């Protein structure tokens, strides 16, 4: 696992990918930090939470090549024909992408440091936002890894990852839309309008239960929830396991 981690992490810096990701992140975080100077006091939580909106671009870019490139170059043979364990390969790559996120996040730590020495507030809420940021990054990275494991084309992996992450980011909108549609259809079918509205809202609630943003929204106020973090962690583990299964299935494929 360490070997795979080391290789993948360093390979980010052998190609432009790592530098570009860091540059984009630095620009965005710097801009978000700077844009708060005119207001009364800097709100770091708001900066960190806004940065999460860019996961949909950054994460597909840093995860798309993790397995797709190996498949294309034929280097995946190494994972199957050497004594290395396939799940530790998945973990190594996951940790490499997560570590790159850690490096990118140094920007925000600098902002926190600057805010602190200038007398701004860096409180429990800020640290809560940092924790949420990383747990969500883990979750989306595991999704990107699954996308990369399913194909030998980086572009397809990026698009697939982009769509999955976008769906999760928009899940509260999607759930409302879906619930309203069901209500309308039931109404047209002659169902009592009150019942239709109840069923619709139940569906909305059901889908939006999956929304990690809603689950973690109180962290920024310093209200921590273990179950929310467990949710993110479980999703991460599930997607990593799926990626592992996809890779293992290849060996058994009869197609």
């Amino acid at each position, binding site marked *: 696992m*360490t*070997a*795979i981690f*080391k*290789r993948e992490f360093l*390979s980010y810096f*052998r*190609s432009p990918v790592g530098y570009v990701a860091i540059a984009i992140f630095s620009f965005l975080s710097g801009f978000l930090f700077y844009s708060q100077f005119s207001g009364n006091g800097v709100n770091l939580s708001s900066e960190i939470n806004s940065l999460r909106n860019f996961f949909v671009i950054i994460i597909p870019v840093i995860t798309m090549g993790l397995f797709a490139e190996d498949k294309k*170059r*034929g*280097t*995946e*043979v*190494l*994972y*199957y*024909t*050497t*004594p*290395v364990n396939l799940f530790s390969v998945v973990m190594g790559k996951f940790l490499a992408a997560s570590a790159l996120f850690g490096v990118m996040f140094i920007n925000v730590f600098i902002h926190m440091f600057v805010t602190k020495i200038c007398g701004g507030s860096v409180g429990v809420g800020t640290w809560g936002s940092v924790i949420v940021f990383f747990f969500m990054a883990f979750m989306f990275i595991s999704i990107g890894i699954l996308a990369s494991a399913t194909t030998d084309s980086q572009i397809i992996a990026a698009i697939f990852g982009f769509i999955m992450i976008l769906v999760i980011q928009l899940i509260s909108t999607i759930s409302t839309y879906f619930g309203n549609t069901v209500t309308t259809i039931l109404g047209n079918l002659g169902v009592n309008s009150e019942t239709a509205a109840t069923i619709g809202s139940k569906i909305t609630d059901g889908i939006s239960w999956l929304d990690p943003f809603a689950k973690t929204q109180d962290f920024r106020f310093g209200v921590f929830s273990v179950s929310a973090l467990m949710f993110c962690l479980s999703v991460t583990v599930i997607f990593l396991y799926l990626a592992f299964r996809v890779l293992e299935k290849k*060996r*058994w494929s*009869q*197609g």
Partner: protein
Amino acid sequence: MIEINNLVKHYGDKKAVNGISFTVNDDEVLGFLGPNGAGKSTTMNIITGYLSSTSGTVKVNGHDILEEPELAKKDIGYLPELPPLYLDMTVLEYLNFICDIKGVKKSERKEHLAKIISMVKITDVADRLIGNLSKGYKQRVGIAQAIVGNPSILILDEPTVGLDPNQILEIRKLIKTLAKSHSVIISSHILSEIQAVADRVVIINKGKVAAIDTISDLSKRLSGSSKLLLSFKGPVKEVSSKIHAVPGVVNVASRISDGDIHELELTVDSSAASDVRASIFFAMAKNGWPILEFRSLDPTLEEIFLSITSQG
């Protein structure tokens, strides 16, 4: 030692490998020969654990590749058709990475790598990026990767494909060196390739074993119908009849004529006591017909298949 027993692999309806069994002994070079699409790569991929078989077993030094994959894989070094190289790493970084995933101990690593690097002769390029190396060097790095961790068995899938003649000779030499201390399975669709290095040959066709034999026995089997090509200047009819009269010549067929230069294809009964070539030379010389070219026609793989299937 590898024991392969009744290997079958389906791809949809197609049977890529259909009941292949053979054994590779210790310190033996086994040639694995077959036309493109015969199932060579699939079989090798199954032996190395890259693919699983639909049925059948592979045992590497007694360890089943599916039941004890880690023990079995430790004994195998594999060079697939496309060498598994990271183009963004230097040769040394790459080999260190391979040491990591193959679990070579840190304390032994330096010595182990130094030995491998000098063996496959990549000392000069050890610090260069793999992406910038020539194809021949890439192939050497691929072989180096296979021998990291001292596996007792090497499996090389078409190791000389796409190389220039000089590189082919060098890779062959390297394989011969490696064969002194390893069992080697080497695949190819070119007969001379296998002849140059292998002790024994497995010929497969359409997913089945067509023949398993030593090279010398195989050529003996084929020797009943060896052919010679004769190119000369002179009257074609007279020459044909003169040569036909030479004892041991079974058939004479005209191939190409260009002005007064002709080519004849001679079928020779090579079980005859004397070598017909000397008699033919003297017959031509006596009549003042200059020989421009005179060589044996190597049996092509197709001919071997035809001959093997017609015999069996």
